[in-house]
């Protein structure tokens, strides 16, 4: 059995590691430090940890002020509030000023589970991706979370890193995260399955199912949603008969849109999109929600088959 980890546990531990390494690391939270695990940092470095209470707009703009004085600021809350409530603070104060604020947002997507639609961010990639200067990263498991957080620390400028709530299995044989690069997890010639976050596991399962049906699928982990690995997309489009892009997010504006924008301008590829279609989430157990919103391996298999049969 693969190792199961909370991405946010890994995030909290990585913050402590960075705190020990660099005295300029400052961490901010908005009353969710237990859930986001920034509390790990707060416990060891109380002088460099600020809890702003339920006030995300203030947290983000204050993070900008801290960063303008040479601090590397990690600011965390749930993805819904990080991206939605404080969007304009992120746009106008953090990103326009191109400051060293690393927004690490947890509890993204329907896998938030029982808390329901109000807490299930499905639009965050779309609204974050549209902001200049901001890099958008969706790690697929625990170890990749650590690598992405370290990359954000080492790279000047603002980041949005999207994490989930639930425990996720560690993906075996994954290449290390590199900003702006995707990774080919498995090769194949009929169809390319491109995914980020929890969907990477689903596309790996889908690949096995497709193999049983005689379809050869390649799998790409596209953690770096922005900047996008355009070279890898180009090769996937050229080397297969179509792309299925999978994300635990609305099909509007996220990874699928990023890939489609590139393909539309640079030689069209047949595409299918796995994601939530113009709907809010709802309460439920995570596996049931994945099924309800057609985000499972079998949905991906069906989409790949449709794509190939309509050639």
């Amino acid at each position, binding site marked *: 059995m693969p190792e199961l980890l909370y991405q946010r546990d890994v995030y909290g531990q990585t913050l402590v590691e960075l705190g020990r390494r660099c005295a300029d690391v400052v961490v901010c939270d908005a009353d969710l430090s237990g859930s986001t695990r920034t509390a790990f940092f707060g416990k060891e470095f109380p002088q460099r940890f600020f809890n702003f209470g339920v006030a995300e707009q203030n947290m983000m*703009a204050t993070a900008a002020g801290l960063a303008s004085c040479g601090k590397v600021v990690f600011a965390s809350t749930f993805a819904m509030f990080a991206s939605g409530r404080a969007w304009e603070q992120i746009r106008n104060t953090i990103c326009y000023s191109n400051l060293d604020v690393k927004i690490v947002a947890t509890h993204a997507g329907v896998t938030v589970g029982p808390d329901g639609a109000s807490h299930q961010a499905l639009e965050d990639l779309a609204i974050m991706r549209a902001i200049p200067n901001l890099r958008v990263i969706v790690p697929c498991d625990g170890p990749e979370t650590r690598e992405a957080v370290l990359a954000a620390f080492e790279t000047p400028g603002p980041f949005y890193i999207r994490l989930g709530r639930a425990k996720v299995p560690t993906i075996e044989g994954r290449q290390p995260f590199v900003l702006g690069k995707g990774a080919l997890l498995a090769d194949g010639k009929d169809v390319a399955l491109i995914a980020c976050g929890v969907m990477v596991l689903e596309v790996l399962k889908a690949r096995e199912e497709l193999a049983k049906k005689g379809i050869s699928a390649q799998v790409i982990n596209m953690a770096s949603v922005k900047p996008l690995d355009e070279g890898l997309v180009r090769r996937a489009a050229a080397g297969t008969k179509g792309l299925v892009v999978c994300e635990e997010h609305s099909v509007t504006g996220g990874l699928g849109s990023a890939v489609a924008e590139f393909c539309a301008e640079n030689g069209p590829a047949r595409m299918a999109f796995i994601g939530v279609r113009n709907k809010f989430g709802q309460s439920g157990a995570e596996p049931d929600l994945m099924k309800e919103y057609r985000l499972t391996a079998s949905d991906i298999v069906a989409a790949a088959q449709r794509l190939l049969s309509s050639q």
Partner: protein
Amino acid sequence: MVIDSRKIRELEKKARQVRLMIVEMLARAGSGHPGGSLSSTDILTALYFSVMRHRPNDPDWPDRDRFHLSKGHCCPALYAVLALQGYFPKEELTRLRQLGCILQGHPDRHTPGVDVCSGSLGQGLSVALGMSLAARVSGRDYRTYCLLGDGEIQEGNVWEAAMAAAHFHCDNLCAIVDYNNYQIDGRVSDVMALEPLADKWRSFGWYVQAIDGHNMAAIIKALEGTKKVKERPSVIIAKTIKGKGVSFMENVADFHGRVPNKDETSLAIKELS
């Protein structure tokens, strides 16, 4: 503290020069916000020519006092003061709001002396709070000043920041409210009343001073006074006049976001010269 009356007269003269520069640069630019720029001129002059510790030839000096213009639309006043201090050549003022210029319509980091962008109202007190907290984390003794508009503090983000600055006992932070009682749609008291404003800040845990924002001696005394306040942030509610210094602009809401035409400009320059 004893305030040298000669020094006050010098600052008043400087403020007059700043006002003239504001009118000239806005008339040339053809758009911008004269009313609030003129109401905040005396405060900015006091900060940059007397109160703040800064080095125009080293804008990134880590120990400099920070200033953040939360009411970013009044940047002509800030640009004039920065130019007079030598942060950039005065000729740049003639290119205000032009394509590719270092002086944008609202402040951004192309301008030497501007640390963080502003212009979208309500976010600046948080930015200043971050600067104040950074001083604490780094063990530096610089102070942070933040100029807010009166209409601006209708934004909820301001009060989130006010709550947090008191919670974190930021006595190195000083906010100034340019209380000219006009916003785009009219009198602040008609659009969305703020009173009792001093009580609001007091109840949020701030040390409050209310002054005449055009009395240079009072401005200096109040700003210097905040340096001695311990354990809590300070706010100065500066009663000002929108369009101050140009008779036909004073207390006229229209001049919030309209620049003077050719005749008005000549008249204004005559009044300020």
